[in-house]
């Protein structure tokens, strides 16, 4: 069962700074059978998958928009963004709400994932740089590879994956038909 988690961002940040850049906290989730994780500081909340309103003429990775307590938030299918298949909606599908962008311009987005598992505590020493090849993901999307309990978890660079400029330009390329 997916729990409704509301993380206090500041608390999370405080915790990570107290640990003096030694350990970071990452939210692990699965997508298409693979496990990924992202820095918890970008995560605002995780919600169950709700009805989406589709926006026409958008590239396929933008699934649509949802109503998040009165705010209209776009939802992105990470699987398609990674060049894979459409994410099927199951009982466990969630939307992770993130805040991305620079300090001047932040943007709230949601990403669809198969399910969310846990918060991982990974020390800096356990993170290795992204492999130059081998992963079928674009290398700039990967912030590093973390080692947890002997297993490897791919850590995503959220700001690159969800770079608004890049996605907006992709949107522009999509034929706005007449």
């Amino acid at each position, binding site marked *: 069962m997916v729990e409704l988690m509301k993380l206090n961002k500041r608390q999370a940040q405080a915790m990570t700074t107290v640990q003096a850049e030694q350990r970071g906290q990452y939210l692990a989730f699965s997508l298409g059978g693979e496990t990924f994780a992202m820095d918890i500081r970008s995560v605002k909340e995780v919600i169950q998958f709700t009805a989406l309103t589709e926006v026409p*003429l958008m590239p396929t990775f933008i699934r649509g928009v949802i109503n998040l307590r*009165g705010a*209209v938030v*776009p939802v992105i299918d990470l699987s398609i963004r990674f060049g894979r298949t459409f994410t099927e909606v199951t009982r466990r599908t969630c939307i992770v709400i993130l805040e991305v962008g620079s300090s001047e311009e932040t*943007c709230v987005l949601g990403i669809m994932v198969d399910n969310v598992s846990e918060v991982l505590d990974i020390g800096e020493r356990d993170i290795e740089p992204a492999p130059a090849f081998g992963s079928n993901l674009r290398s700039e999307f990967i912030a590093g590879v973390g080692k947890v309990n002997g297993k490897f978890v791919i850590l995503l660079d959220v700001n690159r994956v969800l770079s608004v400029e890049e996605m907006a330009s992709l*949107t522009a390329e999509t034929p706005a038909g*007449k």
Partner: protein
Amino acid sequence: MDLDKAKQTFIIEAHELLGAMEESLLAVEGQADPAESVNAMFRAVHTIKGSAGLFGLDAIVHFSHTVETALDRVRSHQLILSGPLVSLVLECHDHLSSMIDGLQQGDAESPDSHAEGEALISRLLPYLEGHPGAESPAGSALATRAKGTPPEPERGSWHISARFGPDVLRNGMDPLSFVRFLGTLGRIVHLSPILESLPQGPDFDPETCYLGYELDLETDADRQTLEDVFEFVRDDSQIRLIPPHSKVEEYVQLIRELPEEDRQLGEILVAGGSITAKDLEQCLQLQRAEAYEGGRVQGRLLGTILIEEQAVPPPVIAAALDKQKKFQERQAHDLKVVKVQADKLDKLVDLVGELVIAGATAKVLAALSRDGRMLESTAVINNLVEEIRDTALGLRMVQIGETFNRFRRIVRDVSKEMGKTIELEIHGAETELDKSIVEKLNDPLMHIVRNSIDHGIEPMEVRRARGKSDTGTLVLNASHESGSILIEVSDDGGGLNRTKILAKALERGLIAEGATLSDQEACSLIFEPGFSTADAISNLSGRGVGMDVVRRNIDELRGNIEIDTEEGLGTTIRIRLPLTLAIIDGFRVGAGNASYVIPLDMVLECLDLGPFLESEEHHLINLRGEVLPFLRLREIFQIPGEPPSRERVVVVEYGDLRAGIVVDKLYGEFQTVIKPLGNLFRQVKGIGGSTILGSGDVALILDVPQLIQSAAAVTR
């Protein structure tokens, strides 16, 4: 009291006063009886001077004092407000304005600013001739108390007696600042603080004011000026002014009424030169002889005290009463206007928006509950919400007249500079726009107006040769037009020269050789960056950096701009802006399994497509003889699936363009809050935002102008 905040208020108010002053200055030239305008100007400078004094901004006080003196002379008909003087005062206004702006960087005056100020003052001096006493207060700035001749033993100075109320310090006033300020009005001959009221030891409260003083001031300022100095403490304190050359009796009265010991007061007055020692003895004897009611004078208004002391001659009393009445009227009027911080207003509009959505949700749930009383109650609530919505949005609306009026100054200055006479006509000044739109319109309009003056309107000789009147006319017009605002800038100048434009465009490689362009297309060329057919570049325009920026600004406001020109006759530039407020009345339609919203004020009518279909191939409908293009939402948005057998058409209008939007279903009217879609969706053509329906679903708001333009383009 937070001094910074107070200073911010001072800066804002000073700018407002300067604005009023500029308006009066510009109006004066055309008026037969400029008395009211002159008074207005004088008051503006006077108030700025007074407030600046309270903050110790000596440079501003110094400068505005000279300007005020000149205006005072005009006011008392010793000086006529001629054209050159108006221009000079306008320059002084500009200098004051930059001084006020400079306050943001700190109180000290920059050496450049000082030099500029001195230059202006020296140009003002000839106008102040014959008024030797009102020379620049440079001589009577702060430190001059020690300078100058010893006090004359005559009653030649004003005697000011001040007993400050206990709350003066708490209210943020400093007794010393009054002394400083008085020092700038003249020469302080003598000053004695009154410290008797200071309690001993534990009774002493550091926040309570126990001070008073007796002060003698040699000045040419009038009573009103001196009274105004104490305006803020008048109510709590006892301030008495005795004019120079007053009789001994008045001083005696003063001594009687003040709470301190008579002899002591008498001695102070002697020291100040108000009365002589002999007079003092006389009056003290008198006192002992007479029955003395004694007691303090508690809280009487200064005006009343002065009148009762008969220190003011009767005609002056009448004038004072008149002024009091005017002041009260002004206060009453001022109360009608409340200053509100812009972000508080925004917050209010946001909350109202949320209220509208919540109201819609409640309505849907009430309908589901089928409870009659519930339904009625929510209906009442929704009505009230609608009213609040309208009022809240109305708060953000300002009249465009404010912006238009600013152009009077520009037209005046520029036409003088160009050596042309141009008359500015303003229509539709009451047309209201959202505050943010008005602010963003300022720059584009400025540029267009400058272009008209610089390039549009021909020099006098050319106009005469063409048989036109010597004076060129520039018209600014604003009006509402079916869901949008129309702003027009027209001139009766030479119009856009099509040949020249085409030649320049060819030169710059913007069009190909031998290309044929319609008039509209030719005119639109001027919006290309760097385009200018001006032969000479003035410091205003001609550099070619203007019109593309103008168009971009208008685009950002989701408006459009078009040019209507006729060579030799003139040019009209039309800017159309959508009235997109945060909360709109929308018309909900359905296509596929999604809902879309069309702004209601653009909707003309709704029909079934069938009977009106003219040509499916060319996408045309025949509306009672009028052939209109239509577009199908399903096609535009590539919605999968088959359209229903019975499709509907919503006929919409934007400006003078009309089209039909074909949809699957019609739902109806409803109020909604526009939620922006964010940067991600900025490029999508046809969608202008989103909204949340009562059911919680998101509906997309159609950008009708974009849709219409694309439909019209296809037909062409």
